[in-house]
């Protein structure tokens, strides 16, 4: 009875922070200069003498309870049965209410177009059975798609440090994480 529900799956152990995904998306959709539907953040951490560095490649999370969708006065948003939160640029007046409401920086304003845009999970490609542009651009398969209706999906983490609060919007993004790979043998002092 459960049907397909798309989510992004990011393997934090494999993400290189190379930003190919980010710019591939920009290139494919001709985004405005300041728009980045997908963004790669660097998370530096350190405690008890151990340091670490990892990267978070994030886009719109196609939330279960999308704030963008709730607040938009033009009803420019909708959520498809497969979970994809669609922003219909046609209906957008560029009021940016959603930009303020989304905790994840999903919707972004393009001054040239006078409208907001956001990741629609490459719905055009997906509907033709192809992978999203960012997933296809990923060098190490760190970024993939996941079907949340699959019972195995519960094995993945719903949150990692550096990611905003998930408790109200329930973003459809999951992570593979583990410590390790941070054994620093240098003792520079």
């Amino acid at each position, binding site marked *: 009875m459960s049907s397909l529900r798309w989510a992004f799956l990011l393997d934090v152990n494999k993400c*290189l922070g*190379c930003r190919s995904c980010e710019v591939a998306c920009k290139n494919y959709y001709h985004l405005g200069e300041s728009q980045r539907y997908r963004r790669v953040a660097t998370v530096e951490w350190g405690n008890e003498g151990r340091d670490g*560095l990892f990267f978070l490649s994030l886009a719109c999370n196609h939330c279960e309870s999308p704030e963008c969708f709730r607040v938009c006065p033009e009803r420019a948003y909708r959520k498809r049965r497969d979970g994809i939160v669609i922003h219909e640029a046609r209906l957008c007046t560029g009021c940016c209410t959603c930009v303020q409401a989304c905790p994840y920086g999903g919707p972004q304003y393009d001054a040239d177009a006078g409208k907001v845009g956001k990741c629609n999970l490459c719905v055009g490609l997906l509907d033709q059975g192809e992978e999203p542009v960012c997933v*296809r651009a990923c060098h190490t398969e760190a970024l993939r798609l996941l079907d949340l209706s699959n019972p195995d999906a519960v094995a993945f983490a719903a949150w990692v440090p550096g990611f905003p609060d998930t408790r109200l919007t329930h973003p459809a993004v999951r992570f593979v994480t583990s410590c390790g790979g941070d054994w620093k*043998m*240098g003792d*520079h002092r």
Partner: protein
Amino acid sequence: MVTVSAKRFRHLCPRNCFSTCAIISTVENGRLVRVEGDPEHGFTRGRLCAKGYAYPQLIYSRRRITVPMRQYPRGSGHWHRISWEEALTTIAAKILELKGRYGSLLSVCLNKQSGNFGYLHYAVEGMFNAMGYITRAEGNSCWSAGLDARIFDLGADRQSDPEDMALARSIVLWGVNPAWTAVHQMHFITMAREQGATLVVIDPLYTATAAQADYYIQVRPGEDGALALGVARYILERGWQDEDFLREYVLGWPEFRSYLEREVSVVWAAEKAGVAPEAVAVLAKLLAWYKPAAIWTGMGLQRHTNGGQNVRAITAPAAMTGNLGQPGGGLYYASQQTWNLLKYNARDWPPPPGATGWVLWPGVVGDGAGDGLEPVAGGGSRPVGAAGVVAGRQARAGDPGVAVGHRPVNTNDFARQVLACTDPPVKMLWVASRGLASQDPLVTSLEEAMGLMETVVLVDHFLTPTARFADIFLPATTPFEEWDVVLSYWHYWLGINQPAIAPVGESRSDLEIAMHLSAKMNELSPGSCTFPTSGSQEEWVAAEFTPEIYVLADIRDYRELLDRPRKLAWPRVSWEGGKFATPSGKYELCSEQAQKCGLPSLPVYVPPAAPSPAYPYRLLTSHQQLGINSQFLHLGWLGGSERATVLLPPGLARRLGVRSGMQVCLYNASGEVVLPAMVSRQVPEDVLLCYQGWYGPGAPEINAIVGGLMTDMGSYKTGFPAPALYDTFVNIYVL
């Protein structure tokens, strides 16, 4: 959505980068709408790096200059549009006037580097070759010390197929950050790791690649040699060396062994390198017991006064453990092993008969390429005169008993050496594929040298910092507007680059500029340039292909590459069977050639340059993720959120009271630069980090304070040593 009118074209990224990606562009209604990776290419596998995906913005950037322009007065920023006719006439007339004034073209100088590795771009060299002998910026600022080190050890700069790194059981990334600079290789590294391989990253900086590693070893900058010698000593102490391999295939093991026993201890090495002794043990164990081990040496670590020596030291334990000549293992650096398979047709044109050129004392000729492709004749022992300039005199070709050529100046000491050229002086400069005003060491010294020039021509896409010095700007096409063929210095794939769109504005390719200038020269002075004045770009591409490369690519015609790229059937494994290209035919731990160049014959420890009390912090200027030298970084898509910053380690930041975002001033005897600070755990204490490159108009010029010292090696292969960029020391204060 792909519309009916969409057309797709194949391209190759010609930048100075390991990957040389195969790109497919989509053109709709004459406009290039997007790029993507070519899935038929086995190394780049349908993916581009972030920079590659930003090409559409480069092509259509509002800042791109697509018409010829003249700046008057120079440096004023007052540019006005001129016609190609006017530009070419002005330039040709100037060249001919200088030729008349000095009796040769030695007062004309070419400074071209690695901005575009397309074979048709060698038309710039070709055009000047075809006019006569000029003054040329030679040498290489990038990799020459490491290159010489490899030649001394191995005899030639050859390496195995990088795709086979997937077969390694241990991978040592020594001072290389492929997650940023060769991201496609990370796939093969990940494959190896999924098969259980161990990944070690050795780097003073905690890089994105280091974050992936099983072991990260934070070595002190310039102390890589000490660490490597410690590993060698550890192997020796345990008797883990491959005695059979050493006996059969290695020259100088007894000498090196006794050096290790005499001078090196593991504790000393760990102390020098600033690492825990366990790090030495882990490396030794991996090399000796987890074979095949792939050791990839980066280029940063050879940008030190002891850089070449460090590279030799790093390769020594690999030879001791017999990690050479097997699939999956071996020494990786960068290699142009396949480049001579193409003809260099665009480059190699004869001068007009009886041209006057330069004779090197004692009568030897520089090779002209200056990119490390062929050894410079008499390499390493060229006579050096004032200011390090290669000594020589002007002479006419065909004069009995002399061979004439171009007058070489060290591109890494360009300003000083150009100023030292007096007979004749340099009066005109042509800059192509090059951003010298942001990339040269101590860029501020360019001012005076540029003052000498009566005409400076810049061929480029943008008004880079170099444009300040230019009189005439010629707009170049991008790879999407021209034919070309490019080979990689890393992988074995061959492809082709076809134009997808008409040249934007009035831009022209280097090849077209060469043909048109040749036509203009001959119009004003018949016979003054032998460079062809006609021929389609595609014909020029065709002319680069040789029967040999057709066999290796298993094609009969270059047009077959329009269907898909091919992998060359080049030997997958280098140094198979222990046959090396050195004079002895063995791996030379003890190199007579090195000794002849005034270097130690053994890979012994040489300490790095040390900071002074006045300038106590080392400044590293590594490559930026989103730029290749002066390219890409200034594009909004990539640099939009990035600005030039100086990264400080937390401890130092605390001592100085610096917090992220504060403005700080870095200074040394050469000058000062003001930058925002960023506190980062990625940087070791006592080190500052600024990613080099051109961040766009108005960005701080970090190279004002970078440089001054030279690397130990580099002269043998490229004719000149390279700048020891990472031996830059500065002080800092908070604004």
